């Protein structure tokens, strides 16, 4: 295990995190090199090549699999390792699907996509057979990698963080060999398997796949919300798992969730996730539309333009009603599940320290209000539907009553929707949102990095911080300053040069050019004096129109351009660059001095300097 190039947890975690940065392939390579340099103080012992799913436009894309392959090779030493970082879930939309889908497995596609991508990467890099294939994953991607490994023997090792566990129901469906083993051992058929005790199946699966367990290594944070929802049936752990304890005041989200019946927990999670996603930008209209299908802007149009609005927006209105018809009942069901248990559920959160009593009361009361509004909306929709259905719209005399009831219905919907918005706005408070933020944050890789208990090292936004005494230095920023800072200073020097030559051109040359223009005119005048007869009439003493110009002589007089010297400023600007360069070097020395116990540091600066020259 320790022969791998990436042989520390920090390295693995930071590289797994890169997947989320949305980097181009060359940026990705740079970042991998930088991370390695920061962690090890040396350069990667080989050539790196990157291959990502953004390059493939085929079955991999169709499965929705996203990932990046890193190949490290050194001809001389025979080193050949391929790391495949699979991307976990990202947006709240993915989360919601995950939370719902996860209770029954993701489906076969992702594992297929994983295996196909790994094979494609191997052939793209033209790897020798002895190449080690190592999978990295976070969140849902762990399920992808591990399932692919169990089904297709894809990896040598898998390293995951806060991963979604394996699902034995999913494996039963997809792994025919496992299915046979289950049948042999437990004598159940494809339906009865759901009646078997989950604990029994869990043990059986762990036993059956125990050989593969040696290849799977996980780190998980105790408060990871994904871990919280994975206590339900279907899930099982495989491989070695390092569970990091939380050291703050929040006790086990997992514990809370384990208290709540599966169905309710699922709905609560989904609601919370949807709510936070929709309120992210503070756009409540979108929030209501997203959850209920009711489009307030549309209804307002109707209110304003009444009859014409009704006719010109027929399609939109029909669509809105259709959407609401679909969304409201489902939403109502979700909300009911939560409200019927709300006291119990939110009490758990109070006890665990996430919210206090008054926040809980607020949540309970507003959710109850929302439920009432939804019930009303459902009723309005069904009443309205029955009016519509009971009279033919071709009948003229009924038409206006339909119109009237339509408009009436829309306005009633509007008032209910507005009431929901008011409730949402009451709940959209920073303190409640920050609870959600915290819960989301507990799933992040950076949180795990900072929980590893590393003495003097911590992480923020992909940067590595080092501490000595009471000083904390952002080492990544220091290296950036040293390398990129120099580039900026080079650019500044160029710009100063440009300023200098611009002045030359815009001031000095320009004056010469203007003089030339004037001289041309002078020449013109002297050559064609008669064309300038009008000049005579300007003179108050010459009144007669019979005058004729004979000649014009211009008594030329040109000043030299006053000495406009910007040289002094240019000089000072250049000095400022020199000062800055010196400053950067002083900073480097200061850091090296602070961390003189760490030999790596000065090596890091040297290497980073080499790269930029």
């Amino acid at each position, binding site marked *: 295990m320790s022969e791998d190039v990436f042989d520390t947890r920090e390295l693995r975690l930071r590289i797994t995190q890169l997947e989320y940065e949305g980097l181009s392939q060359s940026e990705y390579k740079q970042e991998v090199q930088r991370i390695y340099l920061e962690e090890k103080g040396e350069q990667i012992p080989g050539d790196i090549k990157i291959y990502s799913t953004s390059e493939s436009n*085929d*079955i991999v894309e*169709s*499965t929705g699999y996203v990932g990046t392959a890193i190949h490290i090779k050194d001809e001389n030493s025979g080193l050949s390792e391929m790391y495949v970082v699979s991307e976990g879930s990202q947006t709240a939309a993915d989360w919601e699907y995950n939370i719902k889908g996860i209770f*029954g*497995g993701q*489906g*076969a*596609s992702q594992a*297929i996509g994983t*295996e*196909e991508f790994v*094979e494609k990467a191997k052939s793209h890099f033209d790897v020798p057979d002895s190449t080690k294939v190592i999978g990295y994953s976070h969140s849902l991607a762990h399920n992808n990698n591990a399932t692919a490994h169990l*089904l*297709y*023997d894809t990896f040598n090792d898998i390293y995951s963080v806060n991963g979604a566990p394996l699902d034995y*129901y999913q494996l039963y*469906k*997809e*792994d*025919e*060999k496992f*299915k*046979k083993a289950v*049948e*042999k051992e437990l004598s159940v*058929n*494809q*339906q*009865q398997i*759901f009646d078997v005790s989950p604990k029994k199946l869990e043990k059986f699966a762990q036993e059956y796949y125990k050989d593969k367990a040696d290849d799977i290594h996980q780190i998980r944070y105790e408060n990871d919300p994904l871990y919280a929802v994975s206590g339900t049936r279907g899930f099982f752990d495989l491989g070695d798992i390092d569970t990091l304890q939380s050291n703050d005041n929040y006790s086990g989200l997992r514990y809370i969730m384990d208290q709540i019946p599966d169905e309710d927990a699922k709905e609560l999670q989904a609601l919370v996730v949807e709510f936070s996603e929709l309120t992210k930008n503070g756009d409540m209209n979108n929030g209501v539309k997203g959850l209920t299908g009711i489009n307030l802007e549309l209804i307002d149009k109707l209110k304003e333009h009444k009859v014409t609005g009704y006719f010109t927006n027929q399609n939109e209105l029909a669509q809105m009603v259709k959407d609401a018809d679909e969304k409201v009942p489902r939403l109502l069901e979700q909300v009911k599940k939560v409200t019927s248990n709300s006291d119990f559920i939110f009490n758990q959160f109070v006890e665990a320290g996430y919210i206090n009593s008054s926040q809980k009361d607020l949540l309970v009361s507003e959710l109850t209000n929302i439920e009432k509004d939804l019930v009303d909306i459902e009723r309005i929709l069904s009443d309205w539907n029955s009016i519509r259905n009971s009279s033919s719209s071709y009948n003229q005399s009924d038409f206006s009553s339909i119109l009237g009831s339509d408009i009436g219905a829309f306005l009633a919907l509007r008032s209910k929707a507005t009431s929901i918005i008011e409730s949402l706005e009451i709940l959209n408070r920073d303190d409640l949102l920050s609870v959600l933020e915290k819960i989301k944050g507990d799933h992040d890789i950076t949180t795990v990095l900072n929980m590893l208990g590393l003495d003097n090292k911590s992480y923020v936004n992909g940067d590595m911080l080092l501490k000595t005494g009471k000083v904390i230095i952002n080492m990544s920023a220091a290296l950036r300053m040293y390398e990129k800072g120099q580039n900026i200073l080079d650019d500044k020097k160029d710009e100063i040069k440009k300023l200098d030559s611009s002045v030359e051109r815009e001031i000095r040359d320009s004056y010469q050019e203007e003089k030339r223009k004037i001289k041309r005119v002078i020449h013109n005048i002297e050559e064609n004096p008669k064309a300038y007869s009008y000049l005579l009439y300007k003179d108050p003493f010459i009144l007669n129109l019979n005058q004729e110009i004979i000649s014009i002589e211009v008594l030329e007089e040109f000043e030299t351009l006053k000495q406009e010297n910007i040289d002094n400023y240019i000089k000072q600007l250049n000095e400022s660059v020199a000062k800055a360069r010196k400053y950067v070097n002083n900073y480097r020395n200061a850091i090296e001095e602070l961390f003189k116990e760490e030999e790596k540091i000065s090596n890091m600066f040297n290497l980073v300097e080499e790269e930029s020259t």
Partner: protein
Amino acid sequence: MEKKQPKETKQEALPDVEAFNDEYTRDFLLSGEEVMEGFYRFQSKTGKYEMAFPADGIIVEQAYRIKDSKSEEVSIGLHDERGFGMDIFFFSYYTPEDREGILRRFKSRLGYDGEFEEIEKLDKTIYFVPMEDDELKTYGAYIENKQNSGGLEVVYNIKCDNEDEQICEDYKEEDKAKALKWMDSFTFINDKGVESDE
């Protein structure tokens, strides 16, 4: 998603078999008329393929998966004497270019090491593999659409463990023929412009 199944009118009585007696399964079946002996017409909720569905079969609701009209997973529990189950994995995006990887993975999850038997049909190609040496006889096939993209990985498991070896051997030909017949019953629905690929 438009439902394409015509619902049975109250007049027509549905056959009194497991498949129609189970409410969840009935929803997938198009008609009470047999398409071949003991089988009825089943249509995928993606609207992209049909197959013959066994009278004694029940679709396992907890195991059912559909993702837009891109992929679908159907698990069927069989309640006849010897049947165990059928599994159907449909992927609308499979193409002949992907075949090598598809077969490689299929073999892996079947636990099979040999070659596929290639059976050409007019509208599809069936890559067939019989695995007949276990307590569960497994017949697997990758069915490739000839006219459009799309492919099916299907597995038919038949029980053998309660019988003595001889009966198992005797039924071998019959079981294999049954499996092939079922696999041949798959048809892809290729209308363009009617179903949109999401």
